[in-house]
């Protein structure tokens, strides 16, 4: 790690070399270069100070952009939660409903932000800006240059925007689909998730830069401001994954493979929670981080659950709309809080495992996979409980009247899901270890 710190200390006057080539060349060059007195009136340290200053300025630019990106995606996330409740309570008579406006304004502004980052980085690199090179940018289509996080987020947002007109057309062809699991809904969710991943990359890269250069002054519970921003962005991605998995809790509870029926919700949760939880611990290098990320998710969801019913009631009253059924008017309930707080259990399992194995042990994929599988056990219990509760109370929770609530899954469907949940938890853990390692080391 100290070798990385010394070798990546910025001297961005070297243009065109790959990261590996620069790292290979620098030790020999520094070892062989004779120590000379600087010429009178001009010190070699002057250029290094200028380079450091330029790097600091670039870091500030990217930090501000990362904060904006995380905020705009959180706005879109709020709009999505509002939209899902809006469909159930009011219906869909127009594309330009208030929640859609909130979603797409957030998405559009975030997209413009990513585009601006790509363009200004590209122009500065073409002009030979010494603060930019292959160590802190990626090349797109052989022409453009951008910070990696903003490139990923940009692709995700483009996917999401591309899905919108297709979704509209799909509704015109096939009617109002009452399932989140429709092709272009899922396309939008995958795009949104990719954008969330980009926001994590963007903030984690700056967190690493600040950490390695000693720029992080303020800390809370040992986490810098940029660390907390990264973890907040991770809670947003977790929110997106759990929202995408939601229909499996009550509308499509089983995966039907011929005569076999397998409970679906635990499988999706095991993969998603394992991925995010292990990645968080691996990124921060500290047990407790998984619980912190899920804690941030809980705070987000409780805030959304409190605000969304109020927004719906206000808009319905303002626009003179009607609820689909007399019982469709949304309310904040304690059940919603409980249904998100329970996710702290598997997060605590991850952190306990990291404490016992050592956070650094998660660098080994096998260890991370074992931890993911172990986490899947309490998660399985949580998931089964959520499925049975959601199916029994679906109408009270706002399920539209045209949706037929399936019958409760059988015991065999539940038990068949357990080994698959362990397998997917292991996969999530292994992937999370890799993701966390990249986020911890990446500065592009």
């Amino acid at each position: 790690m100290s070798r990385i710190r010394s070798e990546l200390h910025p001297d961005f006057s070297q243009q065109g070399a790959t990261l590996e080539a620069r790292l290979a060349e620098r030790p020999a060059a520094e070892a062989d270069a004779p120590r000379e007195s600087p010429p009178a009136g001009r010190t070699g340290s002057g250029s290094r100070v200028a380079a450091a200053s330029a790097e600091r300025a670039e870091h500030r630019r990217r930090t501000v952009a990362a904060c904006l990106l995380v905020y705009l995606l959180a706005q879109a996330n709020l709009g999505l939660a509002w939209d899902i409740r809006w469909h159930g309570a009011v219906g869909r008579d127009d594309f330009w409903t208030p929640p859609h406006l909130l979603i797409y304004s957030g998405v559009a502004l975030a997209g413009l932000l990513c585009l601006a980052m790509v363009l200004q980085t590209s122009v500065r690199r073409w002009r030979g800006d010494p603060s930019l090179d292959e160590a802190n940018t990626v090349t797109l289509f052989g022409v453009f240059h951008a910070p990696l996080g903003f490139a990923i987020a940009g692709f995700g947002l483009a996917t999401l925007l591309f899905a919108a007109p297709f979704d509209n057309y799909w509704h015109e062809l096939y009617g109002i689909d009452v399932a989140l699991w429709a092709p272009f809904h899922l396309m939008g969710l995958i795009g949104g998730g990719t954008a969330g991943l980009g926001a994590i990359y963007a903030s984690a890269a700056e967190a690493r830069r600040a950490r390695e250069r000693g720029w992080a002054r303020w800390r809370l519970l040992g986490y810098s401001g940029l660390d907390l921003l990264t973890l907040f962005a991770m809670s947003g991605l977790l929110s997106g994954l759990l929202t995408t998995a939601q229909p499996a809790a009550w509308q499509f509870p089983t995966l039907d493979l011929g005569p076999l029926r397998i409970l679906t919700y635990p499988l999706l949760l095991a993969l998603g929670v394992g991925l995010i939880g292990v990645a968080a611990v691996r990124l921060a290098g500290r047990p407790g981080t998984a619980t912190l990320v899920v804690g941030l998710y809980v705070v987000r969801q409780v805030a959304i659950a409190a605000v969304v019913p109020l927004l719906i009631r206000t808009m319905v009253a303002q626009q003179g709309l009607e609820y689909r059924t007399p019982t469709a008017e949304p309310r904040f309930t304690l059940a919603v809080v409980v249904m998100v707080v329970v996710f702290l259990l598997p997060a605590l399992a991850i952190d306990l495992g990291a404490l016992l194995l050592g956070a650094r042990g998660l660098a080994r994929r096998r260890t991370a996979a074992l931890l993911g599988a172990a986490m899947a056990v309490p998660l399985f219990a949580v998931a089964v409980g959520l499925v049975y509760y959601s199916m029994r109370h679906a109408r009270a929770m706002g399920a539209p009247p045209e949706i037929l609530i399936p019958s409760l899954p059988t015991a065999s469907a539940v038990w068949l899901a357990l080994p698959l949940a362990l397998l997917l938890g292991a996969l999530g853990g292994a992937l999370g270890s890799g993701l966390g390692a990249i986020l911890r080391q990446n500065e592009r």
Partner: protein
Amino acid sequence: MKPHLTLARGLIAALALLALAAIAAPVPAAAHAERPATSVSVTAGPYPLVVALYADPPRAGADLPIVVSPGPGSRVGPRTARVVARPGLGVSATPTRATLAPDPDGPGSLAGAVRLTVTGPWLLEIAVDGPLGEAAAVVPVTAAAPGALPAWVGWLIGVGLPLGGLIWFVIWQQGYLRRLEAVTQP
């Protein structure tokens, strides 16, 4: 091969097998999450029946989910049902068949799906068998033209392409991580 690569590839292979199995699995009997688009009351011999159709109009080339339930006032319902879709006048097509299976979401009901292959009028001949013997009823339907964006194309564009992109990204990042780790752990 490094252990972690073996593990990762094994896990991904297992996941891919599961995904393939899910895609290749036949349409389950109860593949109807919504309420029926239309219901028709018919009588098949001694059995009063309610035939629920989950698309109105059904589209040519797509499966039409059907649920056959005992009608109101029926003392006993059929145990098995078979649907034969016969093309109507002017429709150049071959009859299609489907055997309905007990619907786990509706006790006493039988569910399945039949495919209307060509646009135009069709007759759904529902042959039932039960404690009161064999009987049949006919339900006329008209298959509408297929959607301009077939469902499978929608799923391919909507889910296949983005997931493909994500898988490519994961593979790319695996290579990037190997380069990063080679630098930190020579």
